[in-house]
């Protein structure tokens, strides 16, 4: 396989695992900027070692090994920050996130159903926050509401979604 085919193959596999890998990293580093940094270094590291990928094995667990290592490296780089998880906690989280990932498709399916059950104004608020990336402060100003009220509102909606997902996946025997 030439380099071009090699790249195409790598991109295809990465595309498959893109969202799952991002979720995995985010549970370990939780800040968006840290997520992007770790994702980038992970992608480069994986590309460098792509010839060692055993194609008889799934790609995602292989990718997680790189991501985990890069998370630890990243943690060491920003070790002066007090807002980083301990390595022991990261080890726990990464293991449990892999288990969560196994049932994620069912939870995502439940989420889609649960979203349809939300009132329109809740959907509207979520869209402003998550899709249009408006800050809570801006939304609060527009609606002349206290910022805290909007945060509480967001919390309630997310919590409602979380419970709805839990209920549905439990009913399906997946939780």
């Amino acid at each position, binding site marked *: 396989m030439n380099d071009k085919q090699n790249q195409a193959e790598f991109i295809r596999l990465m595309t498959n695992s893109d969202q799952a890998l991002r979720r995995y990293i985010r549970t370990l580093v939780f800040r968006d900027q840290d997520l992007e940094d770790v994702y980038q270094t992970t992608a*480069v590291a994986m590309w460098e070692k792509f*010839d060692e990928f055993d194609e008889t094995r799934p790609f*995602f667990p292989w990718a997680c090994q790189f991501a985990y290592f890069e998370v630890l490296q990243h943690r060491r780089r920003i070790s002066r920050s007090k807002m980083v998880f301990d390595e022991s906690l990261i080890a726990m989280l990464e293991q449990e996130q892999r288990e969560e990932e196994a049932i994620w498709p069912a939870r995502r399916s439940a989420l889609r159903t649960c979203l349809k059950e939300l009132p329109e104004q809740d959907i509207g608020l979520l869209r402003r926050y*998550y899709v249009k990336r408006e800050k809570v402060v801006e939304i609060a100003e527009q609606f002349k509401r206290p910022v805290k009220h909007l945060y509480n509102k967001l919390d309630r909606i997310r919590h409602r979604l979380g419970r709805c997902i839990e209920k549905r996946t439990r009913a399906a025997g997946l939780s």
Partner: protein
Amino acid sequence: MTKEPEELPEPASDRQAFRQYGELLEGTMSEEAFADFQDKLSTDAEFRRGYLQFVNLDSALPDELERLAWLESDDPQSKVDRGHSIKGPARLIAKWSNWVPLLAAAIACVSLSLHFMPAPRRYDPSISMIQSTEILPVPIKFASITQSIDADWHQAWYGQLLPWSNATDALASGPLWLSKGLLEITFDHGATFIVEGPTKLELLDSQHIRVESGQLCIHALEDSQAVSIRTLSDQIVDLQGEAGIRVGPNSGLEVHLFSGKAEMRSLAIDAGKATLEQKLEAGSAGRVVSYLGQRRFERFDAQEDGFVFQIGSQVIVDPASNRTETLNHFGSEDIAVYSTEPDRQMKLESRPGSLYGRIEPQTKLPQIGISFPQTIDLQTFRFLRLSMVRTHSDETSFAFTPGDKNVDTAVAKAVFLPTPRSFSYQELSAEIPFVDGQSERGFSRGKLTVANQVGNLPRSFQIDYLMVDRYPTIGIAEFDADNYYGKLHSRSIKQATISDGIFRGTSADDDPYLLSYQFQIDADKYNAIEVRMKATAKANFAKIYWGKKGNALGEDKHVVLPKFADDKFHTYLINMTGATDWNDTINYLRLDPCRAAEQSFEIDYIRALSIPESDYDEIDRNSRHPTLTTRKVTQSTL
């Protein structure tokens, strides 16, 4: 803001945890609170699980909300007062492509070292699959790959590639890449589409496909659900008909609508700009182009060239021109309609859907005179079929009489060669010889010579039908004699009856079928199957399977028939030339009339025909449903 929605009662401690998770991700958590938070995460497994689920939910919401808006955007009402603007599926597209520039840069950074790296082995879908020990949820499937040609394809599920064999069974939501070859994908609701490699697309649900690049041809007919195709900036919605879709790597959606109707929309890239909307009519094509910074719609004539319309078997619905005429069903209760000769030596009796006869010993040339319901042009109809129980092995023949002549002037005598005696119906076939002058006159009568001469024992016979055909034909099931199943085996069909030339039944479950066995079809000669049937609107589409002895029926050898909601009979002519394993001798043919329980259906006949390839175009061109025509028929290798 409008009235607050009623909240569900919820435990405060749980809600407090959600608040903390939110603060962490939003960056509003203090260092002191973080220390407590981390302690709790380290020691409380339930809290940790809640955290992971919260992060997953929070990560998914942008895409899922945009997906929801996108799906709702088909409904103009949903655009109103939802507190958001419909700008198109930018994020959904981005989720595929947003890391590609990043990766490209990364690749560039390490490209020098690559020159010295051994190239990895090429991915082989047959071996790169999820291991059986992996725990994976069951995807919700709504489509199937029904045909393929030289296809190299993959579908992702849970960030993994599906096992090759499982993936062929059914498809769920997710990206699908076809690097080469052709795939036919059939939605459970009946719509199909042919994908040409290389194409990258994503099945969103049973009605929505997102295409990143590539080419496909959609058939969404009659009562199958409408289908919507989306790209980064454009979409075609509510497509009901047949269309070719083309999406270039750096260009928008190009739609060629060959039949039916659809609406094309170009989603405004910039907020505040109007969305272009154009209705497409059959025969027209459209695309959105950027010109001097403006996006505008270009309309032109639809062009069929370059699209693959169908692979595997070609199905022509309600094909033009009768290929068969029934000369007599022999179902009349009045035997006076038949003349016999010699009169006193042959007795006829009417039986349900058939005619029984007894011939006295020593009778010479026992003949039955038969009138046709219509005049037959023997230049068009060149082949004759006679189904009868023949307890002798003599030669049987049928001679046609010109319209204005005495029956004795019969010409064009077709001879059914002797066959072993049988006590069940046998379909005898013969070619009608061409005689001078026969082209100038229609034939409305004829005489059947049951045997040349009867010996010392009386002979009996029973006739089911007499038919003429344009092409060499085998009546696999004509359902002409009442409640005569012949070599048909049925399963999961209740209230089954055969009368008036029709098989009627109701499906007992979702897998009813009629299996025709113990026959031999020379597949190299008989290259078509014709079925006439009807089913209720809910019956879902029918299937036909075929097989050989020692090579059982299977999903790799079937064709799906389009379904119709009009509760009327439709004729399906299936060109088997390109069908998988349709060669040598075919011994089994199975018709699944529907795929739902408690659905009634009726079948008129199942036939195998030998049709010259050159005739298909004309049959197809004049069919009542020309949309199902095929421009390319190729061997399926699924």
